[in-house]
C-alpha cells in the first residue's frame, strides 16, 4: 500500500469519527483565514474600485477638486469637507486655452420610476464632453449635446443595466419617460456596457447621465463637486497644470483647490493599501496564533489518546519518523481543512458583498490561505508529533 496515501487516510479516518471535535479544533483557523481573506477581498475591491475610476481616463486627464486632495503623500482632510465649485469656475476654466475638454461633475440620487419597475438610482450631471473624457460610448439613441445643455433639456442617457432593469431592454428604454424625484426625464440614449460593477469596479452601467444645467433643478446653489479636464495633447501636462492654477488662483487661495493627475491618486492609494496590508498581517498573525495553539492543544490530547496505538505501530516496525509524520500529517490536515473552510466561507461572504461592493478573492489570497494554514499545521503540530515519536515502544505498548 502506498505509504503517503496510507498516513493521509489514517488522519482523515480520525476526523470522520470525530467530526465535532475536528470542527471545533479548526474553528480558530477557520475564523482567522475567513477574516483575513474577507478583509483582503474588500481591500482588493476597494482598490479596484478606485483604480477603475481612473482607468478609463486617458493620459491627458486631470481633476480639479476643492481643498487639498493630496497632502504629503496622503489624502487631505479638507477634500471631505464639502467645499464646492460653481458656474463661475466653469466659465473661467472654459477660457483656458490648453483645456480641450471640460466636464463639471455633480450628482443626484433618487427613486426612478420606469415602465417595468422602480429603483434607487444615481444621476451624474455633466457637460457634453463627459463621454469623451470618461471613455463612454453610445449604444442606442444619442448622447446629450451642447444644445441640450443650453436648453436645460430634461433628457438622460442611461447605463445599459439600469435601462434593462427599468424598461426591459436598451431598445425599449429609448424615448421613454422616467420620473426621478417627481421630475420627468426623457431617455434619449443608452450607453455601451463598460463592464465593472458585480465583480469589481464601480457599476457605471447602472447610472444615468444628464446635462449639468438640468442638474441645477435639484441644486438651487448650482454647484459642482469637481471638474474633469482633458488637456491639449500638444501642450505639456505641466504647462496645462500651470494654466489651470493661474485661472483658479484668481478666485481661490492656494490651498482651496487641487489639480490632480490620476497617477498621483493611484500612488497614494497604493501606499494606503501598503499600510492596510501590514494591519492585515497583524490581525492574521493573532488569529492564526490562537488557532495554532488550539491545534497544538488537541494534538497533545490525540497523542496521549493514541499512546497505545503508537506502541502497536512501533512493534510492527514503524520508525520514529513514521510516527512523527503520522501526527504531523494529522495536524496539517486539521489546519488545512480549517483554512479551506475559512476560504470557502469568505468566498460565500464575498459573493453576497458583491451586491453592494466590488470585493473579490484573487489567487494570491487563496494560496496565502492554504499556504499559511499548512504552515500553522506544521509549526504547531511538530511538538506533539515529536512527543509521540519519542515514546519508548515498550512503554507505549504497556500503556493502558
Amino acid at each position, binding site marked *: *500500500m502506498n*505509504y503517503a496515501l*496510507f498516513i493521509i487516510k*489514517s488522519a482523515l*479516518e*480520525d476526523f470522520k*469519527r470525530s467530526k465535532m471535535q475536528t470542527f471545533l479544533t479548526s474553528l480558530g483557523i477557520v475564523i482567522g483565514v475567513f477574516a483575513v481573506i474577507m478583509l483582503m477581498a474588500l481591500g482588493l475591491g476597494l482598490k479596484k474600485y478606485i483604480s477603475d475610476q481612473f482607468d478609463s481616463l486617458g493620459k491627458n486627464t486631470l481633476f480639479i477638486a476643492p481643498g487639498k486632495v493630496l497632502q504629503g503623500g496622503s489624502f487631505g482632510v479638507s477634500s471631505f469637507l464639502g467645499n464646492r465649485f460653481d458656474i463661475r469656475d466653469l466659465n473661467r476654466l472654459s477660457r483656458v486655452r490648453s483645456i480641450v475638454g471640460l466636464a463639471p461633475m455633480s450628482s443626484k440620487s433618487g427613486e426612478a420610476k420606469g415602465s417595468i419597475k422602480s429603483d434607487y438610482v444615481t444621476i451624474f450631471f455633466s457637460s457634453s464632453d463627459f463621454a469623451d473624457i470618461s471613455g463612454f460610448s453610445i449604444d442606442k439613441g444619442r448622447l446629450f449635446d451642447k444644445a441640450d445643455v443650453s436648453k436645460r433639456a430634461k433628457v438622460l442617457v442611461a447605463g445599459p443595466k439600469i435601462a434593462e432593469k427599468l424598461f426591459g431592454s436598451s431598445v425599449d428604454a429609448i424615448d421613454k419617460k422616467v420620473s426621478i424625484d417627481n421630475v420627468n426625464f426623457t431617455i434619449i440614449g443608452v450607453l455601451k456596457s463598460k463592464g465593472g460593477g458585480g465583480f469589481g469596479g464601480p457599476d457605471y452601467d447602472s447610472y444615468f447621465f444628464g446635462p449639468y444645467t438640468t442638474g441645477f433643478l435639484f441644486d438651487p446653489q448650482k454647484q459642482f463637486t469637481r471638474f474633469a479636464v482633458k488637456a491639449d495633447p500638444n501642450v505639456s501636462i505641466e504647462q496645462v497644470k500651470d494654466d489651470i492654477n493661474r485661472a483658479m488662483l484668481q478666485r481661490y487661495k492656494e490651498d482651496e483647490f487641487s489639480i490632480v493627475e490620476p497617477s498621483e491618486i493611484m500612488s497614494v492609494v497604493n501606499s494606503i493599501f501598503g499600510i492596510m496590508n501590514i494591519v492585515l498581517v497583524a490581525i492574521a498573525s493573532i488569529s492564526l496564533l490562537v488557532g495554532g495553539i488550539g491545534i497544538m492543544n488537541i494534538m497533545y490530547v490525540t497523542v496521549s489518546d493514541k499512546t*497505545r*496505538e503508537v506502541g*502497536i*505501530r*512501533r*512493534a*510492527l*516496525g*514503524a*520508525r*520514529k519518523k*513514521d510516527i512523527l509524520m503520522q501526527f504531523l500529517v494529522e495536524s496539517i490536515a486539521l489546519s488545512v481543512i480549517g483554512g479551506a473552510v475559512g476560504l470557502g466561507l469568505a468566498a460565500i461572504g464575498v459573493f453576497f458583498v458583491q451586491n453592494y461592493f466590488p470585493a473579490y478573492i484573487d489567487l494570491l489570497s487563496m494560496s496565502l490561505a492554504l499556504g499559511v494554514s499548512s504552515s500553522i499545521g506544521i509549526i504547531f503540530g511538530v511538538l506533539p508529533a515529536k512527543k509521540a515519536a519519542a515514546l*519508548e*515502544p*515498550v512503554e507505549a*505498548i*504497556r500503556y493502558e
Partner: protein
Amino acid sequence: MPEIMFMIKLSNVSKSYQVDEETTFFALRQVSLEIKEKEFVSITGPSGSGKSTLMHLIGLLDKPTTGEIIIGEKKISVLNDDDLSSLRNEFVGFVFQQFNLISKLSVLENILLPTVYSRKELNYDPQKKAVDLLNKFGLFDKKNSFPNKLSGGQQQRVAILRALIMEPKLILADEPTGNLDSKTGHEIMRLLKDLNEKEKITVAVVTHEADIAAYGRRIVRVKDGKLVKS
C-alpha cells in the same frame, strides 16, 4: 563456517527499574536464554514474574539494562532505533493478549500495516498475500469489517495474520489466549502449532496457564525475574 545454532540469544540479561533513589527493582535478573530456529518455546511463570519483560526484550521492543542480546550475528546494543524498527518489521511478528488491532483500520488494512512500514523489497504482492491468508483462515468475508465487529477469536486470528504478512522468522505471543474462552484459546494455540510445524516458523508463547504452556516442545519457567530449571 560454523553453523549458527540459535536465532536469538540472551546472555546475562538484566532489566531493572529505578523505583526511588535507594531502590532498584529487577524485573529480570541475569537471564541467559537461546531460542533456536524452528523451535516452539513456552515461557511460563506466575503473574509479575517478568515474562512480558522477557518477551519485549526478545522482540526488540525494549533494551536490557545490562547483558547482550544477539540476533543472528548482530549484537543489538550496536543497532540504532531505525535498525531495530526494521528488524521488528521483518524478523518478528507480535501477537498480544488484547489483540492490539487498530480500531479505525479495517481488517485488511490492519493486516497490511506492517508492509506500509517495510523498507525491504517484498518478493510478493502484499495485497494478494493478505487476501490469500484471509481465505486460508476463513476470514475473507470480514476483510472490510472493523475490529470491533469481530469476535475475540476472530480478532486474534487477524492479529496472527498481521504477524504473518511480512513472513517473519519468529512469532512472539504474549498471553495470546488470555482474553479468549478455553475452546477458542486452544484453537488459536493449534493454529500457532500448525505454523510452527508446517511453515517452520519459530514460535515463543508467553503464558501463565499450564495447559497452554504444554503446547511448547520446550518450557522455560520464570520466577521473580529469574529462569528456573524445570
